[in-house]
């Protein structure tokens, strides 16, 4: 499988080389640059703040370990980190798809102007949005976070998730429609009050 070198900073490879040589500042740069997206990715999947932090730490600790060993990433660091994050989450959750239940009382009433569905979606708070996302299957959550949230390319997402390009295309399609279904249900519930 041809791995396209991502539009990461070309300087990143240089950074990696320095990091490999135990250059602490290079490693810290990597940490500072990549911590937010990795943390985002994890935090959306894990309810507990502390747990999310621990898991995110784990990802970077694994980077440190990998740098010492043989499996240090030499390019596509972002993909590497997301893969590790994914694995860390899988280990944490097991392989089952986790669904969280949501209570209807949490949902805000929908505004009435414009296309109801879209208006409703726009009015959703971040919390609600997260709840809705969590009701998706794991793969579906991931693809949405990576493709939309992190704006990663199809190819990179496929690499991270270990899937084919067409599989990711189908997955994202289904994920979005499932999400719409969930949101639609919520909207209905709200409308009926």
């Amino acid at each position, binding site marked *: 499988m041809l791995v396209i070198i991502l539009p990461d900073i070309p300087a990143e490879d240089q950074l990696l080389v320095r990091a490999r040589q135990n250059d*602490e500042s290079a490693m810290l740069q990597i940490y500072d640059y990549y911590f937010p997206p990795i943390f985002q990715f994890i935090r959306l999947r894990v309810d507990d703040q502390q747990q999310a932090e621990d898991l*995110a730490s784990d990802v970077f600790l694994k980077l440190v370990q990998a740098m010492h060993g043989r499996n240090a990433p030499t390019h596509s660091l972002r993909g590497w980190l997301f893969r590790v994050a994914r694995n860390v989450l899988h280990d944490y959750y097991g392989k089952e798809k986790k669904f969280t239940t949501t209570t209807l009382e949490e949902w805000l009433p929908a505004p009435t102007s414009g296309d109801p569905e879209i208006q409703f979606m726009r009015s959703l708070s971040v919390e609600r949005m997260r709840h809705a996302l969590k009701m998706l299957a794991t793969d579906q959550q991931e693809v949405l976070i990576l*493709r*939309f949230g992190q704006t990663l390319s199809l190819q990179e997402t496929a690499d991270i998730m270990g899937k084919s390009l067409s599989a990711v295309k189908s997955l994202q399609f289904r994920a979005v*429609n499932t999400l719409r279904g969930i949101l639609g249900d919520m909207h209905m519930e709200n409308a009926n009050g």
Partner: protein
Amino acid sequence: MVDRDLIDAFNECIDLLAAGQSIDDCLRRYPQYADVLRPMLEAGLLARRAQVSPTETADAQARGRARFQDALRKPAPPRVYRLSWARLAAGVLLVFMLSSVGISLAAQDSLPGDPLYNVKRLTESVQLVISGSSPTLQAAFEERRIAETHTLLALGREAQVTLEGVITQIDEATWQLADLQIQIDPTLPDAVLIQSADRVMINARTTRQGTLIAETIRLLGRTQPQTLPTVRPSTTLTHTATVLPTATSTSTASPTTSPTPTSRPASATPRTVSSTPGQRILATAPPNALSTVAPPSPTSVVTCLPQHPDDWIEYSIQSGDTLSNLAQRSGITLERLLRVNCITNADIIRVGQRIYLPGGTTSPSTPDVRTEPTRQPPAPTQIEQNNTEQRNNDVTPQSRPASSATPASRGNRG
């Protein structure tokens, strides 16, 4: 069912959005799908909105950074050489190519718990098979186990060991096998059945303090005299006959309270040997293949003589009989039957073999006849107390009180 083109169009639009374009830009490109794509893209964009707040992220980042820095500064762990499959295969091949002798030589000095110990034991098993289970070899291996155990104890190393040999009791919970002292909890299953001079197999563990603690114990057999006893009861073998206790064996009348040095099997007279109070063992009819070598300690030479109450009779084993069903029919436990008759290997009985059973064995007998205390049909847990008491009682029941001058309970050894 879904239009392939729609799926692709959707995908394209996602990329467009990622590049900073708007939903409308995308819909202009795919007007034919505009109606469908719009809500989908809006929904997808919500995933972007489901972001963690920047402050939360920043806090988490700050907290994690220190940890990260610590991890960076820790010295690199020693390189773990991951074994590749190719290397593993080559290694296995190499091992095969090495002569097995070479490996077993290397294993020779290993102790339980060492990596090569299994090789050592395997080698021994192979040797035993080849030698046709030569008893000399077996004895040699048993010696080895004992030596290994000594080494482990001296090293203060914890390991599991298995020992086989003749055992003697020192006190309530201390036993001796060869020159090893073993702690045996009297409540261990089977521990109660064990008497001095029994051949046992013990699984034990060595401790750091240099003690040996038994975990399981299994009776393998009793030492047997080499000569047959001449103390057969003179009565005929009818089940109504009263079997007189062997005359001299009524040293039963003197249940010893302390381990007495027992006479060697070679003596012709019936000997009463007991290393435990009330534990009289008389020479028994079926010679046993077990080693008759008395353990080194002078207190533990034991010959097993069937000792039975006078109302027991000799019974000739018939085809189809099993010891357990005989025991059951007689209303005694199997252990008792074995013990009284000094049978150590319940698997080897022959048709025509003579054993002693409570009178009236062909029909279930009543416990009262023997006046055993609460002797009900198989109650395996009640063996000890009753067994030894019964064994003491080889004279008529009435005289039992006299003869059981000493408490014959198991706990009273030594």
